[in-house]
């Protein structure tokens, strides 16, 4: 069973690259991690702590990148995205600089910390930025690969890391260059998901199979740019599509998929399962919040069955 967090494997991978390339810099907004302790100790000159000042973190990163550095900036997700969004727009996206925004705490990862720490808007705002690559890993092997990929990118990128230690899905040497993986086939229905919710999608697909529904699962880990051609190929002949994400209903993965379908004249019935248009002060763990949002595997299964039932009636 996996015990490694996405954050630690990510920074471990950056550490390995940074040992070989002194132009790789990490900036933290007063956030720590065991893997960062090593970085701070061994690669002192490549580590900067700007304090709790995310706007300055972005502008400093931009200046470093202009001077030829490859920079990673790191904080809890809402603070490194929406808090300093306009800095990201002007200083990273507009100037197209190689800075990787590393957010930890996708969706309700910081469960008991409440909506200030929940990240349920980030995909919407980050994927709308030109030049930006948006990566949303679903396990640690993919995360490690993304760290390496990010080191070689010429433009800005955003990596959406979960805080929870998730089971693995992939193998260490799997290739993630295509932007998405079909994890399961099924002709009745395809669930397209990302990040932690891929695990719930797999669970729901299993539950649906008990209702004789052949449900497939796609892990869409590159949210921008979406490999539309491959996505459309993977849903060819599928009767219905469901999107599943721990992100607000507006602007995230579901919206992105709806855009791909509409823009390609693919009029397949689509159901978007996401966080309803509200904030959640709810305690007792992430699973509890997911249940309230109807994003746990049982609720997802029920939502899909209800939807199919409605479809059959009409």
């Amino acid at each position: 069973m996996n015990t490694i967090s996405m954050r630690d494997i990510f920074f471990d991978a950056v550490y390995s690259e940074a040992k070989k390339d002194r132009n790789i810099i990490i900036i933290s907004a007063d956030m720590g991690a065991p893997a960062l302790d090593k970085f701070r100790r061994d690669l002192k000159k490549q580590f900067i702590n700007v304090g709790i000042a995310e706007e300055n973190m972005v502008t400093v990163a931009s200046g470093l990148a202009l001077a030829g550095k490859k920079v990673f900036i790191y904080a809890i997700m809402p603070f490194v995205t929406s808090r300093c969004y306009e800095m990201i727009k002007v200083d990273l996206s507009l100037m197209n600089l190689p800075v990787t925004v590393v957010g930890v705490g996708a969706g309700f990862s910081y469960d008991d910390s409440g909506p200030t720490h929940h990240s349920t808007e980030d995909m919407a705002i980050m994927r709308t930025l030109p030049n930006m690559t948006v990566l949303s890993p679903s396990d640690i092997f993919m995360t490690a690969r993304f760290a390496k990929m990010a080191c070689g990118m010429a433009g800005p990128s955003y990596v959406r890391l979960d805080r929870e230690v998730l089971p693995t899905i992939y193998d260490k040497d799997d290739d993630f260059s295509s932007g998405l993986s079909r994890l399961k086939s099924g002709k009745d229905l395809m669930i397209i998901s990302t990040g932690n919710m891929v695990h719930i999608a797999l669970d729901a697909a299993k539950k649906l199979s008990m209702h004789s529904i052949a449900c497939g699962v796609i892990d869409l880990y590159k949210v921008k740019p979406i490999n539309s051609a491959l996505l459309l190929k993977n849903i060819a002949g599928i009767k219905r599509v469901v999107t599943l994400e721990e992100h607000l209903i507006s602007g995230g993965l579901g919206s992105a998929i709806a855009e791909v379908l509409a823009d390609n004249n693919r009029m397949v019935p689509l159901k978007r399962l996401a966080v309803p248009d509200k904030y959640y002060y709810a305690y007792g763990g992430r699973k509890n919040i997911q249940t309230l949002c109807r994003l746990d595997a049982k609720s997802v299964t029920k939502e899909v069955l209800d939807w199919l039932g409605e479809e059959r009636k009409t």
Partner: protein
Amino acid sequence: MTQADLKKKARGIRNMVLDMCVAAGTGHVTSSFSSVEILVSLYHGGILRYDASNPGWEGRDRFILSKGQASPLLYAVLADVGFFPREKLNRFCKADGIFGVHLQNDVPGVEISSGSLGHGLGIAAGLALAAKMDKKSYETIALLGDGECHEGSIWESAMFIGHHRLDNLVAIVDRNRYCVTGCTEDIVSLEPLGKKWESFGWEAATIDGHSFDEIFHTLGAIRSRRGKRPLVVIANTVKGKGVSFMENKYHWHGLAPKGREAKTAKAELTARMEEP
């Protein structure tokens, strides 16, 4: 260049800026005019190292125009020192032009895109820090607006630069005392501005931003500042300097004169060309 030459150059640059903005019908004329002597000192007066025939030269000093609304001024200066043909200035804000109201970094000689305020000082910090990391000898100079100092991000960056003692960085605040809708002191007071910077770990100097004497006295030897605290220069200036009816009139912010006013402005600047 002698001081007389620099003065003449400053007058010429004001004429160029006015012509650009009048022809375009837009542009921040008054924000540009307050910084003219500063930019002429930097680019014509030999303070900055650059190579107009090789804008990306590694050894160049990095000039960060954080008050990106003064783009017509920087463009005029860059054209004048040879980064691109002067004819490009006639196409300011035109469909076939290469630049507009706010600064863009794909123009030869321009380091950053700006126009949104509160960004340039942090970017300058990153550049200065990279120079330290790589043991490079370039200087980084950021020109800020005083109204821009209302932005909280300026003070995040000021704190960071003070903490890291970036002695290879100089910030110049164009203290023309006016932002968009009035005087800074009536809107949200900035004073004591120099003391604020000092308390953030900087050395502060206050000068007359239109006096070449004072500019060179303060900025002439920036390369010999190693080991000192980062330097901020509060340059007291006049917004709209050079055209009597625009000076210290905040409602001219972001506007170019038209019709009769454009002619009067041009006549004033032209007449001043003959001054000693």
